[in-house]
């Protein structure tokens, strides 16, 4: 699914996982800081009509082979997911948002560890597991989305989560 997951504080990379040791991912992540910063600035403007709690920034910029999505926490921690163009066609914005929310939650869990030194590399088994689940194909992801959707709607609702 996702082929690269990155977490940044300001412009410093504190977590990176790539499906392949390609330099290109690094450049893409580094370049997307430009867009993220810009979008965050727009977010903080009082005139913007965005929901202040909406941290999902959507597709950042067009690249031929990849799709790069961004997400910023309220403390301006940046999350970046890169998908290969071919696999991501079926993905819709709400799905990706859910992926980000899982990643964000995992990040929060990880830094809640009292032994974690702020602004340093994330080293956590649990976090790795979540990232792995984001990166492997379909099954765990689909079920994860299904379960999170299911939990987000009341049990009496007739909406049945569909596989993506």
């Amino acid at each position, binding site marked *: 699914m996702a082929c690269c997951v990155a977490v940044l504080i300001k412009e410093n990379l504190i977590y990176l996982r790539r499906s392949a040791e390609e330099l290109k991912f690094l450049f893409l992540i580094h*370049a997307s800081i430009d867009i993220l910063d810009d979008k965050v600035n727009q977010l903080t403007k009082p005139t913007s009509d965005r929901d202040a709690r909406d941290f999902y920034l959507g597709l950042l910029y067009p690249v031929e082979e990849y799709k790069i999505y961004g997400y910023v926490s309220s403390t301006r921690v940046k999350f970046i997911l890169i998908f290969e163009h071919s696999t991501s066609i079926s993905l819709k914005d709400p799905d990706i948002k859910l992926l980000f929310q899982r990643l964000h939650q995992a990040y929060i869990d990880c830094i809640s560890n009292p032994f974690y030194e702020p602004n340093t590399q994330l080293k956590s088994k649990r976090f790795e597991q979540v990232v792995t689940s984001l990166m492997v194909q379909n099954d765990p992801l689909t079920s994860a989305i299904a379960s999170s959707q299911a939990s987000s709607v009341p049990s009496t609702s007739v909406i049945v989560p569909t596989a993506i």
Partner: protein
Amino acid sequence: MAWACAMPEELSIVPKGLVCLANLDTRHQPVHRSIWELLDKEKPSAQLRYRLVDIDEQYPHSKAKRATYEWYVPKGILKTNWMHKHLHLVPSLIVIFFELDWNDPLFKDKQNELRSQIEMVRTSLDGRAAVISIVLLQNKNSFPTVDDVYSSERDQMANTLCNYFDIQKRSLCVLPVLPQPDNLSAWIDRLEQTFIESSQNYYTNEIRLVKKHKETLNNITHQLLHIRHQFKVGFFSELRQDIPSAVKSYRNAYSYLTESARIHDTNILEMKMVAGFLTYKICRISFELSQPVEAINHFRRHADIFKSKIGPTDLVFEHKAWLSKQFQTFADLFTLCPLAIQTQHPGFYYQEAAYQSMARKQISQACNRIEQADVDPSEFLKGTEFFGQRPWRQHHQSMEITDAQKEREAIAALRDAESRINHSELIISLLVQAITHFKKHSSNRMKLYLMYNLAEEYVSSKNYDIALNHYNHIVQAYRSENWWLILEAVLPAALKCAYLSVDLPDWIRFTLEILNPNINLSSQLKNQTQINFENFLLKHILPPVESTISSKDEQWKALPEKQAIPIDADTLKGLLECKVYFTHEAVSVDSEIILQVALKNGFPLPIEFSQLLLNFNLKEYNTLVHVTDIAKLKFLPGEQRILSFNFAPKSDHVQRLLEITSVSLIYGSVDRTHIDFQWRTSLQTTPSFQQTFLTPKWRTKAGHVLWENLPMRRKINIIMRAAEVQLTVEHQLPALLYESYPIKIKITNCENVDIHSATLTCTCSSSDDTAPTADDSLLSYSIADTNTETTAHACSRKLYTITKAAEIDQDLYVRCNNNRPREITIRFSYERLNLHCMKEIVIQLSVVNPFSIQFQTMGMMMEPLASLRAQEPFILMIDTRCTSIIPITIVNSSFKPSQFVISDCAIESQIDNIQLKLDEVVAEGFCLRTQPIAASIVQNLLVGEYSLYWKRSSHPNIPELCTTFSLSDFNVEQQQVYVEVNIPNNVPLQEPFQINYRIHNRSNIVHEYKVNLEQINVVVAVSGSTVTSLLVPPHSSSDVTYTLVATLCGFVQLPKFKLSMIRPQSQDVDESIEKTMPTHIFVVPSSQNE
């Protein structure tokens, strides 16, 4: 590269209807020339393109249109010459200019001549449907006015002419411009309108003709014709300026091509090229209509569809070239559109074009050149009749390849041509364009990625110097953001590039970057890098050459023997760190400065520096901190060392700031090429709010200081030697206004010798920021003339000898003339051991008022008076209240009446040496009388001056101060009547006494009063009549005398004296006059009774 990445020039021309102008002699006839210039001039919304032709111009032949396409198999989609033909050769309208006046004597002959010309044009058009239009150039004098009688006749003539020439009537125009045109442009505008109309009619007709074929086509064999026809319709629509239907037709053609047409290896190039043309047209029109979203969406779809249609595997480079060209042309179009944003701008498309070209380059490296050719390769590269077809199998539309041998040869020829192309140039130009756009949209980080690509491309095209520039920029940018992962990838390439361009400073810089501990390259590589670095600088062994790159030994040897290479060590982040620390913030000039320099080494192998030098803002110290001892400058990996330096400050640098400006650490021998590591900005003290690292216990070894915890202090103040004296002051705040405030200064000599020629200086400065000026205090060592107005802000005194351990006293008096707070600085200074020593005390002085006075006036009966009455006596009461916590003694007081006031007796002070504490009051009264006044009411009368002689009670020997108040602000009224009562102080019992009332008339008229002494009780009996009337002349007085007898002892009430006015009647006696009269008398027992 004729086939894949070519965009025909005709495609990019904005189509406009073609109009041929015949018979215009622009060279010889000025009128013709100006007609041509007006028509041909650049207009933003021009709809037609004009071309000058000869009358016998040959136009392209028109093919016979087939009636049915039933058995027809199309050979291709679009002929290469078709667009050119319709843009430049086939006119929509031919205009023949001819000079002919209606009343020309040779009208018939000329008419025939013109007719033959028209026939000639008709012949050369050869069945093309272009309209022929005639413009008659006529003499403007012969042109009919509105009410011309000949107009109908002219009409008739025109009709005849039209019939004769066999043209439509509206194709005949008249231009009255001879011999000299007036207002030509207005005529031309009208003329052009008719041209546009005719031209558009022609293209509408052409479109109809093309569309007519549609019914005869079938969907199996004629797919290509569908595309071709839609393209033609689109193109003709553009020619007739019908943009919306042009887009529609192009879109139709595009969807035919992508959805219905069969695309296979043999025709893929043709399909792609036509699809590219259509996309170009659609996007360009969308951008022109300011619909960039439409254009982007179409292009995205186009790229997605064709990206996977690679075609023959041997010709992948051709696909990449085509893709690259698609992106590039789209980016070119996008550049013309002003609506670009940060996430959607031409830069991205140039970037992608560059990447496609890079991919093409990589593929083409596998292409072999043909060294010995059996067949001429140029045969396979020549032009074709249809766009995108193969020269060796033109018009071939089947899916199979018939001649496999020929195909192989042809592909080899194409690959040969590809291998001769300089891709780098193309890639670089694309990247540079992309970078420009990214820069414009403030995407600096994205720009870096492209710069990296650009640098790589420059390296591959052997432009090492330019590449090095880019590498420098990239490395610096990524380092400043701590992106070590990218640096790991970039640095080895950059180092190689620096080697190849024989740039020693850059080579060293990149070497140092690689050695940075944050760079996670293999230790073998890092060690080797450091060894190369050491070898070159210390042993002069040239860097080893990798087998893949050409050796530059010769140039390296030619480098100068001796050069100093400065390295900005602030940027080395972790490789070498330096901290400087003065142990104290300030140092007195007689003690030593202690400076610590901490160095930390991050080189992977042990390293040995040759010198350490510190530079200060005061040049005299530069040589003092200089280490050349190699043992002190030898570091193991990760080792940190603190070097300590002691040196004395120079005596003439007292009061100055010593600051370290730079630290430089030298590697290599100074008389050969060496490196000078310089720290400047990183020596700044870290801001105090930055978190200090808490060091966990397990991380600190005994005696080991964590680098982060080492302090930084690069500035030290050099101050004076501290004076070994005790300086104390005794005084009692607050200071009183105007007094000479006494301060006792005590100086004790604590030096072990006598102090000679010391100076005691006292200065006063205002501590109130709001009013720093107008300081009016007086400082003096003795009590000067106390009441002078002089001020002095400073006083100084030489004290000749103070013996060892002795104490001397000195009094200081400060007089403050206002209430502002101030500071008194007492400075004691002297020379000792040729050093200036000083001690200083600052006293904050607050100034308060010592007392306040209050005064009021009363009548003779002690009743308060609002205003004084002229010529009548009154009592002035003065209260003096002490308002400060300092007790004061009022020694004396004096009252000096003014000229308006007289005193009936001598004025004597009733105060004598009275001490007042806080809120205590002393009162004094004076009996005075006002002088006659000119007006009836006088305001703000000055009564007199009241002076108080006072001093601080605690210092009895200070002379007293005199503070004078002027008593003014009294109102005086002139009263009409004044009754002066003459009464004995006391009377004996039962003895008659007289009471005399003298009534003064102060007005200018005669007054008559009724006087009545009203008996209240029998205690005081009145003898005689009590009621009389009294006449008083102006400015004089009359007396009324009563004889009374008191019958009781004590303080008894007198009968009430009543005065009322008889004449003039209008006036009345003021009732307040009663208050001025005595009401009681003291009766004593009769002396006879004793």
